[in-house]
Protein backbone atom coordinates (compact mmCIF):
# COMPACT_ATOMS: atom_id res chain seq x y z
CA UNK A 1 0.00 0.00 0.00
CA UNK A 2 1.20 3.45 -0.80
CA UNK A 3 0.30 6.21 1.51
CA UNK A 4 0.89 9.84 2.01
CA UNK A 5 2.80 9.64 5.15
CA UNK A 6 1.89 11.15 8.42
CA UNK A 7 2.23 10.24 12.03
CA UNK A 8 1.22 11.36 15.43
CA UNK A 9 3.54 13.30 17.62
CA UNK A 10 2.49 11.46 20.70
CA UNK A 11 0.35 8.63 19.46
CA UNK A 12 0.78 6.03 16.78
CA UNK A 13 -2.81 5.28 16.00
CA UNK A 14 -5.16 6.38 13.31
CA UNK A 15 -8.34 8.20 14.17
CA UNK A 16 -11.53 7.68 12.19
CA UNK A 17 -12.09 11.30 11.19
CA UNK A 18 -10.04 14.46 11.13
CA UNK A 19 -10.78 16.44 14.26
CA UNK A 20 -12.06 19.85 13.22
CA UNK A 21 -9.53 21.67 15.31
CA UNK A 22 -8.28 24.78 13.67
CA UNK A 23 -5.28 26.83 14.44
CA UNK A 24 -5.02 30.54 14.04
CA UNK A 25 -3.88 31.45 10.57
CA UNK A 26 -0.13 31.08 10.25
CA UNK A 27 1.81 34.24 10.10
CA UNK A 28 2.18 35.35 6.53
CA UNK A 29 5.63 36.55 5.86
CA UNK A 30 5.95 40.27 6.09
CA UNK A 31 9.66 40.18 5.54
CA UNK A 32 9.40 39.74 1.82
CA UNK A 33 10.56 42.90 0.17
CA UNK A 34 8.48 44.96 -2.14
CA UNK A 35 9.18 43.15 -5.32
CA UNK A 36 11.36 45.05 -7.76
CA UNK A 37 10.28 42.67 -10.49
CA UNK A 38 8.92 44.42 -13.51
CA UNK A 39 6.18 42.21 -14.97
CA UNK A 40 6.80 43.57 -18.42
CA UNK A 41 10.37 42.32 -18.18
CA UNK A 42 9.36 38.76 -17.47
CA UNK A 43 9.65 36.50 -20.45
CA UNK A 44 6.36 34.68 -20.90
CA UNK A 45 7.00 31.01 -21.29
CA UNK A 46 6.09 29.69 -24.69
CA UNK A 47 3.71 28.51 -26.03
CA UNK A 48 1.93 31.18 -24.06
CA UNK A 49 -1.52 31.00 -22.58
CA UNK A 50 -3.61 27.90 -22.56
CA UNK A 51 -6.20 27.44 -25.27
CA UNK A 52 -8.90 28.64 -22.91
CA UNK A 53 -8.91 32.27 -21.85
CA UNK A 54 -6.56 33.10 -19.05
CA UNK A 55 -6.75 32.95 -16.18
CA UNK A 56 -8.47 29.66 -16.59
CA UNK A 57 -9.80 26.89 -14.44
CA UNK A 58 -10.24 23.29 -15.44
CA UNK A 59 -7.76 23.32 -18.27
CA UNK A 60 -4.80 21.19 -19.14
CA UNK A 61 -1.94 21.12 -21.59
CA UNK A 62 -0.11 17.78 -21.71
CA UNK A 63 -1.46 16.60 -18.37
CA UNK A 64 -4.16 14.06 -17.64
CA UNK A 65 -5.83 13.97 -14.26
CA UNK A 66 -6.15 10.45 -12.91
CA UNK A 67 -7.41 11.07 -9.42
CA UNK A 68 -8.17 13.63 -6.76
CA UNK A 69 -8.96 13.41 -3.09
CA UNK A 70 -10.56 16.44 -1.51
CA UNK A 71 -11.31 15.17 1.90
CA UNK A 72 -10.72 18.01 4.24
CA UNK A 73 -12.73 21.20 4.10
CA UNK A 74 -11.11 22.77 7.11
CA UNK A 75 -7.40 22.24 6.75
CA UNK A 76 -4.77 23.96 4.71
CA UNK A 77 -2.88 21.16 3.03
CA UNK A 78 0.86 21.53 2.87
CA UNK A 79 3.81 19.20 2.36
CA UNK A 80 3.55 15.79 0.75
CA UNK A 81 5.44 12.55 1.25
CA UNK A 82 4.95 9.18 -0.43
CA UNK A 83 5.72 5.81 1.11
Amino acid at each position, binding site marked *: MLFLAGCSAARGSLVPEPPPVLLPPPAVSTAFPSTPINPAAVQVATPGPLPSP*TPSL*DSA*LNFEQLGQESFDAVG*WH*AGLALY
Partner: protein
Amino acid sequence: MGNRRARQINIVDISDPTQPEWIGALPFPDGSQPAELRVLRGQHLLVVADLTSDVSLLTFDISDCSSPHPLGSLVIESQPHEFFLWSNAAHTRAFVATDLAGPPDLLVIDLDDPAVPVEIARWSAADDGLTGPLHSVSVNAVGDTAYLSLSAQSLVVADLELPSIRIRRQEDNSPALAAFPGAHSAVPIAEVPFVVLTAEFYDCPFCGLAFAQLFDPAQPEIVAHIGLQENRCEDLPDEAVFSAHNPLVVDNLVFISWYAGGLVALDVSDPFQPVLIGRFVPSGLGAAAESYVGGYPVQMWSYPILRDGLIYIVGIQSGLYVLRYTGPGAEAVEQIALAEGNVIDEP
Protein backbone atom coordinates in the same frame (compact mmCIF):
# COMPACT_ATOMS: atom_id res chain seq x y z
CA MET B 1 -0.14 15.16 3.73
CA GLY B 2 0.88 17.89 6.10
CA ASN B 3 -1.36 20.64 7.28
CA ARG B 4 -0.88 24.27 8.26
CA ARG B 5 -4.23 24.76 9.91
CA ALA B 6 -5.67 21.56 11.30
CA ARG B 7 -3.28 19.91 13.76
CA GLN B 8 -3.10 16.64 11.93
CA ILE B 9 -1.52 14.75 9.09
CA ASN B 10 -3.86 13.11 6.64
CA ILE B 11 -3.18 9.65 5.26
CA VAL B 12 -4.36 8.65 1.82
CA ASP B 13 -4.29 5.20 0.29
CA ILE B 14 -3.07 5.57 -3.28
CA SER B 15 -2.78 1.90 -4.15
CA ASP B 16 -5.27 2.78 -6.90
CA PRO B 17 -4.00 6.15 -8.14
CA THR B 18 -7.24 6.77 -9.99
CA GLN B 19 -9.18 6.63 -6.74
CA PRO B 20 -7.07 7.95 -3.89
CA GLU B 21 -8.86 7.32 -0.64
CA TRP B 22 -8.51 9.11 2.67
CA ILE B 23 -8.04 6.47 5.32
CA GLY B 24 -7.27 8.40 8.44
CA ALA B 25 -5.62 11.27 10.18
CA LEU B 26 -2.95 11.39 12.81
CA PRO B 27 -3.56 14.04 15.41
CA PHE B 28 -0.86 16.22 16.84
CA PRO B 29 -0.96 18.09 20.13
CA ASP B 30 -2.73 21.40 20.46
CA GLY B 31 -0.80 24.21 18.90
CA SER B 32 0.96 22.00 16.37
CA GLN B 33 1.29 22.78 12.70
CA PRO B 34 2.72 19.62 11.10
CA ALA B 35 3.21 21.08 7.66
CA GLU B 36 6.34 19.52 6.19
CA LEU B 37 6.91 15.78 5.66
CA ARG B 38 9.71 13.78 4.11
CA VAL B 39 10.20 10.03 3.86
CA LEU B 40 13.22 7.75 3.40
CA ARG B 41 11.69 4.55 2.12
CA GLY B 42 14.68 2.30 2.65
CA GLN B 43 14.80 3.28 6.29
CA HIS B 44 11.02 3.33 6.66
CA LEU B 45 11.59 6.74 8.16
CA LEU B 46 9.20 9.67 8.25
CA VAL B 47 10.50 13.08 9.32
CA VAL B 48 8.03 15.83 10.20
CA ALA B 49 8.68 19.51 10.75
CA ASP B 50 6.17 21.16 13.04
CA LEU B 51 6.05 24.86 12.26
CA THR B 52 4.70 25.97 15.60
CA SER B 53 5.31 23.41 18.25
CA ASP B 54 8.09 23.54 20.77
CA VAL B 55 8.98 20.05 19.55
CA SER B 56 9.78 21.06 16.02
CA LEU B 57 11.37 18.03 14.34
CA LEU B 58 9.93 14.56 14.80
CA THR B 59 10.84 11.13 13.46
CA PHE B 60 8.68 8.03 13.01
CA ASP B 61 9.11 4.43 11.95
CA ILE B 62 6.49 3.81 9.29
CA SER B 63 7.25 0.16 8.55
CA ASP B 64 3.57 -0.36 9.23
CA CYS B 65 1.79 2.45 7.43
CA SER B 66 -1.30 2.12 9.52
CA SER B 67 0.53 2.26 12.81
CA PRO B 68 3.45 4.69 12.71
CA HIS B 69 5.77 4.40 15.63
CA PRO B 70 7.23 7.57 17.15
CA LEU B 71 11.02 7.39 17.29
CA GLY B 72 12.44 10.69 18.39
CA SER B 73 12.04 14.42 18.48
CA LEU B 74 14.12 17.52 18.80
CA VAL B 75 13.47 21.01 20.05
CA ILE B 76 15.45 23.30 17.81
CA GLU B 77 16.32 26.84 18.62
CA SER B 78 14.44 28.35 15.69
CA GLN B 79 11.15 27.01 14.45
CA PRO B 80 11.47 25.25 11.11
CA HIS B 81 9.85 26.40 7.91
CA GLU B 82 11.11 23.97 5.30
CA PHE B 83 13.74 21.29 5.29
CA PHE B 84 15.74 19.14 2.91
CA LEU B 85 16.25 15.50 3.82
CA TRP B 86 19.55 14.05 2.62
CA SER B 87 20.80 10.50 3.05
CA ASN B 88 23.55 8.27 1.72
CA ALA B 89 25.01 4.98 2.87
CA ALA B 90 26.77 6.63 5.79
CA HIS B 91 24.66 9.50 7.01
CA THR B 92 21.16 10.93 7.20
CA ARG B 93 20.69 14.64 7.75
CA ALA B 94 17.93 17.22 7.76
CA PHE B 95 18.87 20.69 6.56
CA VAL B 96 16.32 22.95 8.21
CA ALA B 97 15.54 26.48 7.01
CA THR B 98 13.97 28.62 9.69
CA ASP B 99 12.60 31.47 7.57
CA LEU B 100 11.22 34.21 9.81
CA ALA B 101 12.21 32.43 13.01
CA GLY B 102 15.95 32.77 12.48
CA PRO B 103 18.73 33.39 13.20
CA PRO B 104 20.13 30.84 13.09
CA ASP B 105 18.81 30.56 9.55
CA LEU B 106 20.02 27.06 8.78
CA LEU B 107 20.31 24.10 11.12
CA VAL B 108 21.77 20.73 10.18
CA ILE B 109 20.30 17.87 12.15
CA ASP B 110 22.03 14.49 12.21
CA LEU B 111 19.54 11.63 11.92
CA ASP B 112 21.98 8.73 11.79
CA ASP B 113 20.09 7.50 14.81
CA PRO B 114 16.60 8.77 14.05
CA ALA B 115 15.58 8.11 17.62
CA VAL B 116 18.11 10.71 18.76
CA PRO B 117 18.20 13.71 16.40
CA VAL B 118 21.22 15.90 17.10
CA GLU B 119 22.12 19.34 15.79
CA ILE B 120 25.57 19.23 14.25
CA ALA B 121 25.87 22.55 12.42
CA ARG B 122 24.25 25.93 12.05
CA TRP B 123 24.56 29.01 9.87
CA SER B 124 23.25 32.53 10.09
CA ALA B 125 23.10 34.92 7.14
CA ALA B 126 24.10 37.85 9.30
CA ASP B 127 27.39 36.19 10.20
CA ASP B 128 28.35 36.37 6.52
CA GLY B 129 27.10 39.90 6.05
CA LEU B 130 23.91 38.73 4.38
CA THR B 131 20.26 39.42 5.06
CA GLY B 132 17.96 36.59 6.06
CA PRO B 133 15.59 34.97 6.40
CA LEU B 134 16.42 31.69 4.71
CA HIS B 135 13.24 30.45 3.09
CA SER B 136 14.42 27.13 1.76
CA VAL B 137 17.47 24.98 1.14
CA SER B 138 18.45 22.12 -1.12
CA VAL B 139 21.55 19.94 -1.20
CA ASN B 140 23.28 18.14 -4.07
CA ALA B 141 23.51 14.36 -4.26
CA VAL B 142 27.09 14.22 -3.03
CA GLY B 143 26.20 16.34 -0.05
CA ASP B 144 28.97 18.89 -0.42
CA THR B 145 26.94 21.82 -1.74
CA ALA B 146 23.88 23.63 -0.41
CA TYR B 147 21.70 26.05 -2.36
CA LEU B 148 20.28 28.69 -0.06
CA SER B 149 17.37 30.93 -1.01
CA LEU B 150 17.37 34.10 1.04
CA SER B 151 13.92 35.55 0.61
CA ALA B 152 15.00 39.14 1.11
CA GLN B 153 17.90 38.94 -1.22
CA SER B 154 19.19 36.19 -3.41
CA LEU B 155 20.53 32.75 -4.13
CA VAL B 156 23.68 31.90 -2.20
CA VAL B 157 25.71 28.71 -2.62
CA ALA B 158 27.51 27.13 0.32
CA ASP B 159 30.21 24.49 0.45
CA LEU B 160 29.56 21.88 3.09
CA GLU B 161 32.24 20.20 5.10
CA LEU B 162 30.17 19.73 8.20
CA PRO B 163 30.17 21.19 10.69
CA SER B 164 31.66 23.87 8.43
CA ILE B 165 29.21 25.74 6.18
CA ARG B 166 31.07 28.21 3.98
CA ILE B 167 29.28 30.42 1.52
CA ARG B 168 31.03 31.05 -1.75
CA ARG B 169 32.68 34.43 -2.10
CA GLN B 170 34.01 36.63 -4.83
CA GLU B 171 37.66 37.52 -5.22
CA ASP B 172 37.16 40.59 -3.04
CA ASN B 173 35.72 38.30 -0.36
CA SER B 174 32.20 39.68 -0.68
CA PRO B 175 29.44 37.04 -0.77
CA ALA B 176 28.72 35.62 -4.22
CA LEU B 177 25.05 36.38 -4.88
CA ALA B 178 22.58 35.88 -7.67
CA ALA B 179 20.14 38.65 -6.82
CA PHE B 180 16.58 37.40 -6.83
CA PRO B 181 14.42 39.11 -4.19
CA GLY B 182 11.63 36.97 -2.83
CA ALA B 183 13.60 33.79 -3.43
CA HIS B 184 11.61 30.86 -2.15
CA SER B 185 13.13 27.64 -3.45
CA ALA B 186 16.46 26.87 -5.09
CA VAL B 187 16.92 23.45 -6.66
CA PRO B 188 19.87 22.43 -8.86
CA ILE B 189 19.33 21.07 -12.33
CA ALA B 190 21.04 17.71 -12.38
CA GLU B 191 24.62 17.46 -13.61
CA VAL B 192 24.80 21.00 -14.98
CA PRO B 193 25.69 24.22 -13.23
CA PHE B 194 22.22 25.72 -13.16
CA VAL B 195 19.74 26.29 -10.36
CA VAL B 196 16.01 26.82 -10.74
CA LEU B 197 14.64 29.53 -8.46
CA THR B 198 11.12 30.42 -7.46
CA ALA B 199 10.01 33.56 -5.67
CA GLU B 200 6.95 33.98 -3.53
CA PHE B 201 4.84 37.11 -3.43
CA TYR B 202 1.17 37.26 -2.56
CA ASP B 203 0.37 40.38 -4.56
CA CYS B 204 1.06 41.61 -8.05
CA PRO B 205 3.59 41.78 -9.48
CA PHE B 206 4.21 38.11 -8.98
CA CYS B 207 7.64 37.00 -9.85
CA GLY B 208 7.55 33.70 -11.68
CA LEU B 209 10.63 31.60 -12.09
CA ALA B 210 14.30 32.19 -12.75
CA PHE B 211 17.38 30.20 -13.68
CA ALA B 212 20.81 30.95 -12.32
CA GLN B 213 24.06 29.73 -13.83
CA LEU B 214 26.99 28.67 -11.66
CA PHE B 215 29.72 28.29 -14.26
CA ASP B 216 31.75 30.67 -12.15
CA PRO B 217 31.29 29.54 -8.54
CA ALA B 218 32.23 32.99 -7.37
CA GLN B 219 29.66 34.75 -9.48
CA PRO B 220 26.24 33.08 -9.82
CA GLU B 221 24.06 34.91 -12.30
CA ILE B 222 20.40 34.94 -13.27
CA VAL B 223 20.25 33.95 -16.93
CA ALA B 224 16.51 33.55 -17.53
CA HIS B 225 13.42 34.90 -15.84
CA ILE B 226 10.10 33.64 -17.04
CA GLY B 227 6.46 33.66 -16.08
CA LEU B 228 3.03 32.64 -17.18
CA GLN B 229 0.84 35.02 -19.10
CA GLU B 230 -0.83 35.81 -15.77
CA ASN B 231 2.47 37.02 -14.38
CA ARG B 232 1.91 40.10 -16.51
CA CYS B 233 -0.74 40.89 -13.88
CA GLU B 234 -3.39 41.81 -16.42
CA ASP B 235 -7.07 41.26 -15.57
CA LEU B 236 -6.50 38.79 -12.78
CA PRO B 237 -9.35 37.58 -10.61
CA ASP B 238 -9.50 38.66 -7.01
CA GLU B 239 -7.17 36.91 -4.61
CA ALA B 240 -5.49 34.81 -7.29
CA VAL B 241 -1.80 34.37 -6.52
CA PHE B 242 0.47 33.53 -9.45
CA SER B 243 3.74 32.92 -7.66
CA ALA B 244 5.83 29.91 -8.61
CA HIS B 245 6.36 27.87 -5.46
CA ASN B 246 8.16 24.51 -5.42
CA PRO B 247 10.04 22.78 -8.28
CA LEU B 248 10.79 19.19 -9.14
CA VAL B 249 13.68 18.70 -11.56
CA VAL B 250 13.64 15.55 -13.71
CA ASP B 251 16.51 15.51 -16.17
CA ASN B 252 15.72 18.35 -18.55
CA LEU B 253 12.18 18.86 -17.32
CA VAL B 254 10.99 20.96 -14.41
CA PHE B 255 7.57 20.58 -12.82
CA ILE B 256 6.53 23.49 -10.62
CA SER B 257 3.62 24.09 -8.29
CA TRP B 258 2.54 27.61 -9.21
CA TYR B 259 -0.32 28.55 -6.86
CA ALA B 260 -3.22 29.76 -9.08
CA GLY B 261 -1.18 28.82 -12.13
CA GLY B 262 -1.60 25.14 -11.25
CA LEU B 263 1.15 22.69 -12.14
CA VAL B 264 3.54 23.91 -14.82
CA ALA B 265 6.01 21.85 -16.86
CA LEU B 266 9.05 23.40 -18.51
CA ASP B 267 11.70 22.01 -20.83
CA VAL B 268 15.03 23.38 -19.61
CA SER B 269 17.30 21.68 -22.10
CA ASP B 270 18.50 25.20 -22.72
CA PRO B 271 18.22 26.96 -19.35
CA PHE B 272 18.74 30.26 -21.10
CA GLN B 273 15.46 29.70 -22.94
CA PRO B 274 13.08 27.50 -20.95
CA VAL B 275 10.03 26.34 -22.88
CA LEU B 276 6.60 25.76 -21.40
CA ILE B 277 5.50 22.26 -22.35
CA GLY B 278 2.65 21.51 -19.98
CA ARG B 279 0.21 22.97 -17.56
CA PHE B 280 -2.59 21.64 -15.39
CA VAL B 281 -5.13 23.93 -13.77
CA PRO B 282 -7.82 22.08 -11.84
CA SER B 283 -11.46 23.01 -11.79
CA GLY B 284 -11.34 24.21 -8.22
CA LEU B 285 -14.13 21.83 -7.26
CA GLY B 286 -13.75 20.48 -3.78
CA ALA B 287 -11.71 23.42 -2.63
CA ALA B 288 -12.14 24.83 0.84
CA ALA B 289 -13.36 28.40 0.98
CA GLU B 290 -10.09 30.09 1.66
CA SER B 291 -6.50 29.81 2.74
CA TYR B 292 -3.92 32.18 4.07
CA VAL B 293 -3.48 33.65 0.60
CA GLY B 294 -7.18 34.15 -0.12
CA GLY B 295 -10.17 32.46 -1.64
CA TYR B 296 -9.16 31.73 -5.23
CA PRO B 297 -9.88 27.99 -5.56
CA VAL B 298 -6.58 26.94 -7.15
CA GLN B 299 -3.50 27.15 -4.95
CA MET B 300 -1.02 24.47 -6.01
CA TRP B 301 1.58 24.37 -3.28
CA SER B 302 3.61 21.25 -2.57
CA TYR B 303 6.79 19.99 -4.14
CA PRO B 304 5.53 17.67 -6.89
CA ILE B 305 6.60 14.05 -6.46
CA LEU B 306 7.09 11.74 -9.43
CA ARG B 307 6.54 8.12 -8.59
CA ASP B 308 6.13 5.23 -11.01
CA GLY B 309 5.53 7.69 -13.81
CA LEU B 310 2.75 9.63 -12.08
CA ILE B 311 2.93 13.06 -10.50
CA TYR B 312 1.45 13.68 -7.06
CA ILE B 313 0.84 17.24 -5.97
CA VAL B 314 -1.16 19.05 -3.31
CA GLY B 315 -3.34 22.13 -3.47
CA ILE B 316 -3.77 24.03 -0.23
CA GLN B 317 -7.57 23.98 -0.35
CA SER B 318 -8.40 21.01 -2.51
CA GLY B 319 -6.04 18.25 -1.45
CA LEU B 320 -4.26 15.68 -3.54
CA TYR B 321 -4.06 15.39 -7.31
CA VAL B 322 -2.66 12.44 -9.24
CA LEU B 323 -1.59 13.34 -12.76
CA ARG B 324 0.01 11.80 -15.79
CA TYR B 325 2.30 13.95 -17.88
CA THR B 326 1.71 13.39 -21.60
CA GLY B 327 3.89 16.04 -23.24
CA PRO B 328 7.36 15.92 -24.77
CA GLY B 329 9.58 13.47 -22.90
CA ALA B 330 6.60 11.67 -21.37
CA GLU B 331 7.93 8.22 -22.21
CA ALA B 332 11.09 8.85 -20.21
CA VAL B 333 9.11 10.36 -17.34
CA GLU B 334 6.90 7.28 -17.15
CA GLN B 335 9.98 5.12 -16.60
CA ILE B 336 11.16 7.02 -13.55
CA ALA B 337 10.49 5.21 -10.31
CA LEU B 338 10.92 8.17 -8.02
CA ALA B 339 11.98 11.80 -8.14
CA GLU B 340 11.60 14.43 -5.46
CA GLY B 341 12.67 18.04 -5.11
CA ASN B 342 13.39 18.07 -1.40
CA VAL B 343 14.86 14.62 -0.69
CA ILE B 344 18.12 12.91 -1.67
CA ASP B 345 18.07 9.23 -0.76
CA GLU B 346 21.07 7.37 -2.10
CA PRO B 347 21.69 4.25 0.00
